[in-house]
């Protein structure tokens, strides 16, 4: 009897613990990259319709009444505090599993090459670089006298080490570097070579790397953050990387800030790095404060200086009314889409996919219902990308009649109960979405839209992102809402059509263009190629493009020189931030 009770108790315990997680829609700062669940995220509050649908903020807005600044924020003299959802404390680039640790790393470690606001490469630790005529060899020239935060020199050997360990067979991070075809990397990974043939240290300031196949993204991808060989490579033996875990909490980098202290679940504290190559940052201290969920209360009480919000009219008004915050508009470098199950008979037909796109009122779902905190997407690139174009792009304006006509052409005729049929099968769309406000709006509108077309709509909502993904992997769906992770190069947004992620899309023309787009690093040439690719995908719709997000950043009016890059976040401008004296 007693045993039974105890077993039952443990069972209940397990059951209650398995309760699914609440999803969190309002990050303090979006994760830089990595393992954070990316789904369609809706605006957190408010749901009233705004006619016109354009975001209420297109220009930076300056704080109107600095006297409202809370006392806590006035007292700070040398510290800036920014909220960050959940850094875990593993601060080694390439080994970090959480995107939030990536945000921390971006302040602790500088890259060889970084990107500007359009996503084009600009010098960082490397002052210049050459690309060979065959587009296969990249040579990086490092600045002179570079130092790590512990004062030791940063040289080409450190770069070579950084690249090499990512090709180790035990490397378990999510860096994209191992996907590059570096000459001799495969042999190294298999243990057949002692070093990687394609990586050559020419002198302490010069290093080159040779690829087997041209890849325009390699310059930025290999030009990443540099690990100190003396520190991270001391105990390195091929096939054994476990020792690095012990170094996660004591990073040695070359970025603008050094780690002072990590308090789990609370704060990451930084101090200015006096060895930073651009000179010591202007603000002595910086803190990432762990703050899950809503960040309003922290900005309002002056506990953080900077937070991001969905660009709804309501949020913008509220930020303006606080008086002491500057506001800047921001478009993340991502796009939202509906993944289409191309293995299902009905959806194999391009006309059906186009009909669904025409028939879906994306303007209402993503723009109006979000109070302007979004815009409609028609190509797999964000409007801020250098490759973005609207030339020759079909906007698929909401048009029920056109959609009906296309379905008729595809042979789907109205049957019993107003549902279209073909060969005795009904046209049913089984939709999957993550639990969020945006999904609720989508389901409400799409149900009506699809009903008007004679399409049966069966939505299914998941509170847990992982379960959603495995349902998609099992193939039991027709449409599913996703959003891409942050995209730097235009090819990043296309890779899912190449690597088998989108099952059933096999277009030789696309593959040819994709390879062509990577074969040159000439931007004008690439622009032309991506325009062609976007036009092709916009017509074929292997996925249905839905939306771009719009965000605003609100920050303490005392901070000067603040800017946010869509690709590297705060990292590029942070060393210049200064704190004006409080009034």
């Amino acid at each position: 009897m007693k045993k039974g009770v105890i077993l039952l108790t443990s069972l209940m315990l397990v059951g209650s613990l398995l309760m699914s997680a609440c999803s969190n829609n309002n990050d303090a700062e979006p994760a830089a990259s990595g393992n954070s669940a990316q789904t369609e995220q809706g605006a957190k509050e408010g749901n009233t319709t705004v006619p016109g649908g354009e975001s209420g903020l297109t220009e930076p807005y300056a704080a109107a009444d600095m006297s409202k600044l809370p006392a806590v924020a006035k007292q700070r003299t040398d510290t800036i505090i920014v909220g960050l959802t959940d850094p875990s404390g593993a601060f080694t680039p390439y080994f970090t599993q959480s995107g939030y640790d990536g945000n921390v790393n971006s302040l602790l470690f500088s890259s060889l090459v970084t990107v500007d606001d359009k996503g084009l490469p600009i010098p960082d630790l490397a002052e210049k670089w050459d690309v060979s005529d065959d587009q296969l060899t990249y040579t990086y020239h490092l600045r002179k006298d570079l130092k790590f935060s512990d004062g030791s020199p940063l040289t080409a050997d450190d770069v070579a080490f950084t690249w090499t360990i990512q090709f180790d067979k035990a490397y378990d991070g999510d860096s994209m570097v191992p996907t590059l075809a570096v000459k001799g990397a495969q042999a190294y990974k298999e243990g057949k070579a002692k070093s990687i043939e394609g990586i050559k240290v020419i002198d302490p300031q010069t290093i080159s790397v040779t690829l087997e196949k041209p890849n325009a993204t390699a310059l930025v991808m290999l030009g990443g953050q540099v690990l100190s060989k003396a520190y991270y490579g001391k105990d390195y033996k091929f096939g054994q990387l476990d020792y690095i875990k012990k170094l996660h909490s004591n990073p040695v980098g070359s970025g603008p800030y050094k780690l002072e202290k990590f308090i789990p679940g609370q704060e990451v504290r930084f101090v200015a790095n006096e060895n930073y190559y651009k000179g010591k940052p202007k603000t002595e201290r910086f803190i990432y404060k762990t703050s899950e969920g809503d960040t309003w209360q922290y900005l309002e009480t002056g506990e953080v200086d900077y937070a991001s919000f969905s660009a709804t009219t309501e949020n913008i008004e509220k930020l303006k009314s606080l008086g002491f915050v500057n506001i800047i508009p921001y478009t993340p470098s991502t796009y939202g889409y509906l993944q289409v199950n191309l293995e299902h008979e009905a959806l194999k037909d391009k006309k059906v996919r186009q009909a669904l796109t025409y028939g879906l009122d994306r303007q209402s779902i993503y723009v109006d219902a979000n109070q302007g905190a979004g815009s409609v997407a028609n190509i797999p690139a964000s409007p801020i990308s250098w490759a973005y174009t609207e030339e020759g792009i079909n906007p698929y304006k909401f048009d029920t009649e056109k959609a009906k006509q296309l379905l008729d052409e595809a042979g789907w005729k109205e049957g019993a109960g107003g549902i279209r049929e073909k060969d005795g099968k009904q046209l049913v769309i089984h939709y999957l979405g993550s639990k969020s406000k945006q999904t609720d709006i989508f389901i409400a509108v799409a149900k009506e839209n699809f009903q008007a077309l004679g399409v049966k709509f069966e939505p299914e909502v998941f509170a847990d992102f992982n379960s959603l993904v495995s349902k998609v992997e099992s193939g039991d769906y027709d449409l599913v809402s996703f959003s891409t992770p942050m995209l730097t190069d235009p090819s990043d947004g296309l890779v899912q059509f190449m690597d088998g992620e989108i099952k059933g899309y096999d277009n030789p023309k696309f593959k040819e263009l994709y390879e062509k787009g990577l074969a040159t690093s000439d931007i004008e040439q690439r622009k032309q190629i991506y325009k062609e690719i976007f036009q092709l995908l916009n017509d074929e719709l292997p996925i249905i493009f839905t939306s771009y997000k719009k965000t605003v950043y609100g920050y303490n009016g005392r901070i000067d020189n603040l800017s946010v890059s869509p690709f590297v976040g705060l990292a590029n401008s942070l060393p210049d931030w200064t704190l004006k004296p409080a009034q």
Partner: protein
Amino acid sequence: MSAYLTKRISYMVIILLAASLLIFCLYALTPGDFISSNIKLSPERKAELREIYGLNKPLLERYGIWMKNALHGDFGFSLAQQKPVLTLFNEYIWNSFLLAAVSTFFTWLIAVIIGVVSAYKQYSWFDTLVMVLIFAAMSLPSFFIGLFLIKICAVDLKWLPPGGMLTTGSNATGLAYVKEVIHHMTLPVVVMTLLGVGSLTRYFRSNMIDVIKQDYIRTARAKGLKENKVLFRHALRNALLPAITLVGFELPSLFGGSLIIEKIFNWPGIGQLYIQSFGLRDYPLLMGFTMLLAVLTVIGTLLSDILYHIADPRVRLH
């Protein structure tokens, strides 16, 4: 007694073994794994990583590996946090414990006092009023009352901080540190106490009512004892006996963390860590934490049985 203990402990081991297998299977069979939510990875890289992490092995083999390591005291590395699971527990669990211990203390204290008084003055205006208030407090959703108090006390009146455990950037040590933590834990403790006090008060009130009607209470009064003595020496002691069962059940909840409260008040506790690990399918951490709770539950029940025996010699242990 020792025979009894040996028997009970061997049962406990069997139960924990069964529970661990069950828990492991439940986690492993929930759809998705640690790799699948990382949408950056290509299908080949995903397969490669599953190989490195051993996620492609058969379920029972994975359980065997976990069990073998656990028996050697190695609960593994958290996949997402990149730290040993036990280190993580040590970093987070004490924060949860602090919150739970203080609020449990206040919950019990308040519940006992109110329970006794309202039982003594059954059906008086005090009793009725308290019962109404208690039901009101019990039926409040925790996230609502939490956010409401943050809005009033932190954002509008600026009396208390809106969340966290320390003032950001604070270097306070010693007494100043203690003061700061108390300042930050006030709101969450108030909410937890408010939500917990209701059911416990009802429990003590009804126990007390039963006891007050017993013959020995009448005898005590007939002996001419002071009313205070009758109530607290004779009645309360007996009314508290059944509560010993509850003490055992409180044990896991002291260490388990509170998911909602920790999230609302941004408290760096284990509850938040757990729920986030579940979303990511961080198996080593999930297994370690759930097993810890299972162990505490089993120990808690044993403890309350033994305490019962000590407090009330009429109860025999077999």
